[in-house]
């Protein structure tokens, strides 16, 4: 049986990669994918702990996260499409109308 720590470390790596990707890339689509990677990393920790503690709560959590992720992606992509119609770009540096 693989030690839970390995899973956690893997999750940390995926999370760091995802976070780095969010910060490094300017393409909104890629950023959304990176966010998905981060969420999956978290899901992985939850499932790993679920096994570690013998509790189903972690898995139910993952289920909820997946629901939220699906909705988030759907809405995020809808926003992105609308934005693209407006300014013909998905580069986040072009979205600065919220400047204070």
């Amino acid at each position, binding site marked *: *049986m*693989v*030690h*839970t*720590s*390995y*899973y*956690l*470390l*893997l999750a*940390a*790596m*995926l*999370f*760091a*990669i*995802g*976070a*780095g*990707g969010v*910060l*490094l*890339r*300017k*393409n909104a*689509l*890629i950023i*959304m*994918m990176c966010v*998905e*990677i981060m969420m*999956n990393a978290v899901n*992985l920790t939850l*499932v790993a702990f*679920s*096994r*570690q*503690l*013998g509790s*189903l*709560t972690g*898995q*139910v959590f993952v*289920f*909820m996260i*997946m629901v*939220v*992720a*699906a*909705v*988030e*992606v*759907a*809405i995020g*992509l*809808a*926003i*992105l499409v609308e934005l*693209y119609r407006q300014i013909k770009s*998905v580069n986040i540096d072009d979205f600065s109308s919220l400047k204070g």
Partner: protein
Amino acid sequence: MLLANLELYLFFIFGGVAVIAAFGVVFNKNVVHSTLFLLLDMVMLAGLYVLLNAEYIAVIQILVYAGAIVVLILFVIMFLGAELGERIPTWLTIRNVIVVFLAAVFLTVTGTAVFEWLGVGQAIHGNITPELIAQNGSVEMVGAAIFTDYILPFEFASVILLVGIVGVITLGGWRKVQHRKDSE
């Protein structure tokens, strides 16, 4: 020997591919390629869930992520045109160096913490038997949990989905449909 450590090997394969796929998502000029790497990543994670005896989650992972989300993203890329691949001008900026450094710090810290625990912790909690774990991830168990203890969050999940549907319809063209109707 090989069979005994099969689980470990599988973990390394799945984990390694997942990490490589994640890198592929981040460092790829072509958005379509990035998306395909994301698909690979999701599938690898589903494999890891199976290793963790969470079959139900693994199936959902494939259905939702690989089946729905990735397809949706591909759809959008098709919608917006394929020339979205951004030019990566100069990777070596101060900001990017800071980002990488911070990510390294994060990884170091969490990794250290995890391996400190590795010394004292066990693979599973003391009184939990592998049989219980094997039972745990099954559809019956998760279904029972969702429909008894977690019925309220489950209902909320459906509300969230409904809100998402309404939001997407509103953003995505309801107005234009109306508009077209009006102009007829």
